[in-house]
């Protein structure tokens, strides 16, 4: 089952053999569809949640931030568990199904969830589901793709995912316009989208074993894979770069403090970044396959550095704001899927989910630490000096990361004869 995504015109002349490996597996498109439907579902709720909390439940700011810190920790652990369980059972699909189903059911729980505590619990269930499903799903994408088109495969998946995130708020506000005040309608429709996503996953996505014929990975083997030489340098690089990656929320805060127009359209900043991400995910995935995933990953952080510097300027008008959004979108497109593509080739197939989970968790924890550090600096020194300091450190870290990742993934598929993905016809 193959779906051909049209190549750019200048690729038209390449030989048939070459274009065959450029195809993105139908499984990847299906997984992208699952993510699209699920993101429509979750962004529908996320986009009206502030309004819902204000208008219906009543707002309660206290300690929400503290709870959120705990969830992030739990979510990171669940992610590793999801990766490991997917590897161990060699059936990552069903672990992913469990994760998607948990998020779907949490939508339905929004209906009777009246109080703050209930809503917090529902949001937590959603996040745990997300933590559980991410790594096994990425392992499936890797298992369904030829090694030399991994970057493109992850690019296609992330683009579909982000498209869903852009559609979700549209659906939600169309519903609110049609049936004013009926938040129940939003939760029910959100549930329908989530169920559709689970159904596509459960019924159409093949249950690819990540390591056909191989012995079951024991915990020790998985651990030695993650801590082994193959992943040491990329994990180190990811941690180093992650420690200097502040949440884009901070950049938006700086932008909105510069002028009133940006402040008024604050939520649109996220949309702008998403559009850039959506547009660039596939091209940058392709580029990663061609020039090396490590290089694109490192170059993505140069875009982030550019965003820091532009945001630190006193004011650069609307053009400057748009440039920051474009740079942040480029950063995500060059790093999120590309990291998964990079890591999935560096670990043995039987530990792939755990390896991807380890990398994603490393990045998540490092970024969380970066946000805490940056927040402290922000309050002590003010936003601009803090940002400039992070920019300077990032400028030093990028060459170090480039050195760590040097030569890690030369695009030479022939050197890994055993790495042909299982379940995919050659």
């Amino acid at each position, binding site marked *: 089952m193959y779906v051909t995504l049209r190549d750019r015109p200048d690729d038209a002349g390449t030989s048939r053999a070459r274009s065959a490996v450029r195809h993105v597996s139908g499984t990847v498109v299906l997984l992208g569809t699952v993510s699209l439907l699920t993101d429509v579902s979750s962004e529908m709720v996320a986009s009206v949640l502030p309004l819902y909390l204000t208008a219906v439940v009543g707002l309660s700011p206290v300690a*929400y931030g503290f709870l959120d810190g705990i969830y992030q920790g739990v979510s990171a652990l669940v992610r590793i568990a999801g990766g490991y369980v997917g590897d161990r059972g060699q059936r990552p699909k069903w672990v992913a199904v469990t994760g998607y189903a948990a998020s779907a059911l949490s939508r339905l729980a929004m209906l009777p969830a009246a109080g*703050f*505590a209930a809503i917090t619990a529902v949001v937590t269930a959603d996040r745990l589901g997300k933590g559980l499903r991410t790594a096994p799903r990425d392992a499936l994408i890797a298992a369904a793709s030829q090694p030399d088109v991994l970057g493109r495969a992850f690019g296609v998946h992330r683009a579909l995912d982000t498209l869903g995130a852009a559609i979700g708020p549209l659906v939600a506000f169309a519903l609110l316009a049609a*049936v004013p005040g009926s938040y129940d*309608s939003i939760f*029910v*429709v959100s549930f329908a989208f989530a169920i559709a996503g689970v159904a596509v996953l459960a019924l159409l996505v093949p249950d690819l074993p990540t390591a056909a014929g191989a012995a079951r990975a024991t915990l020790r083997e998985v651990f030695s894979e993650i801590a082994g030489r193959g992943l040491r340098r990329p994990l180190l690089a990811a941690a180093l770069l992650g420690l200097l990656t502040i949440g884009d929320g901070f950049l938006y805060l700086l932008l909105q403090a510069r002028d009133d127009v940006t402040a008024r359209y604050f939520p649109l900043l996220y949309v702008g970044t998403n559009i850039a991400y959506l547009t660039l995910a596939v091209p940058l995935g392709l580029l990663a396959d061609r020039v090396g995933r490590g290089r694109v990953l490192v170059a993505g952080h140069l875009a982030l550095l550019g965003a820091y510097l532009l945001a630190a300027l006193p004011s650069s008008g609307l053009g400057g704001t748009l440039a920051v959004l474009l740079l942040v979108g480029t950063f995500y497109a060059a790093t999120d899927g590309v990291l998964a593509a990079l890591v999935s080739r560096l670990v043995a197939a039987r530990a792939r989910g755990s390896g991807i989970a380890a990398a994603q968790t490393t990045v998540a924890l490092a970024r969380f630490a970066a946000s805490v550090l940056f927040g402290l600096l922000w309050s002590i020194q003010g936003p601009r000096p803090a940002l400039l300091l992070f920019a300077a450190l990032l400028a030093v870290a990028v060459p170090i990361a480039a050195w760590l990742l040097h030569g890690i993934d030369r695009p030479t598929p022939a050197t890994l004869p055993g790495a042909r993905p299982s379940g995919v016809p050659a």
Partner: protein
Amino acid sequence: MSGRMGGLGPRARLTALAVVLLVAFLGAGGYVWQARQDLTAARTSATGAPTRDDLAVVRDVPHLVFRNTALGADYGRVAMVPLSAPAGPRAVTDAACERVYATRDEAICLSADRGLLTTYRARLLGPDWSVRRDLPLVGTPSRARLSPNGSLVAMTTFVFGDSYANPGQFSTRTVISRTTGAVIGDVEQFQLVVKGAVVTAVDRNLWGVTFADDDRFYATAASGGKTWLVEGSLTARRMTALREDAECPSLSPDRTRIAFKKHGDLPPGRWRLAVYDLATGAETLLAETRSVDDQVEWLDDTRIIYALPRGGAGTATSDIWSSPADGRGAPELLVSDAWSPAVVR
């Protein structure tokens, strides 16, 4: 791929998927359609609450200003009833607000422009309910109060990302401005003193201002998971904690007591209403046992009023209740189908 897909063949799978999608989207579509039908039915059958046309007459006597939530054409509009007959017909204005607060000469109206991008506006309305000026606003508004003589306005909004450890999470910003439009400042930047020590924690939040006069105010301060009732001065740019565990204060007309919501040992997101005596420090729990998440209002020196969403299906509807401020008696329904009360004496 069939060998790995369990018992079902490809055709059975596609059929199963089609069935699931049909059931899910027809079910959801049906739900939305039914909700829309119900809304339309409620709007056409409901003539709304009984209304009266003599706006000017109501405006001249002591009255209650609120957001009309009776389903019908006037849903969401600002309405008034005389304090002498709160349950009687209401006079409905043209102003549409999510939240409203009023003094004799002006009103502050917070409204949402819903759409793909929901933006919020804060407007100052004149005695004829026409817009006098737009006030600067960043974030999602949650509380608004005017000072007794109408010269100051305080608004609390939720802003993304102000909680430094958690970009993307909510945090409050409470700005006090003159009703002429000049901004006095964000009270979060004022000095906060708790038990003699200055609190400089990054996570401190301030919200729910109630004015005593043109300088003194009370508000809620929070840091490290605790909340305090604080007394502040605009000229000194300083706030001092009076007691712990008190949110959304509201000063009584005689300025001797403060009604507030208290969290105590209740589950997260639930509060109990209480009254604090400024002279003695005594706390009185009110007879209202339902959780109220709102900044209450004083009807007079003996009763406080607050809005509660009506349980059941119609979550868009709410009522205004009253409770004796001395903790005795029982809550009583004051105005049905109403929200965001403000008393104009």
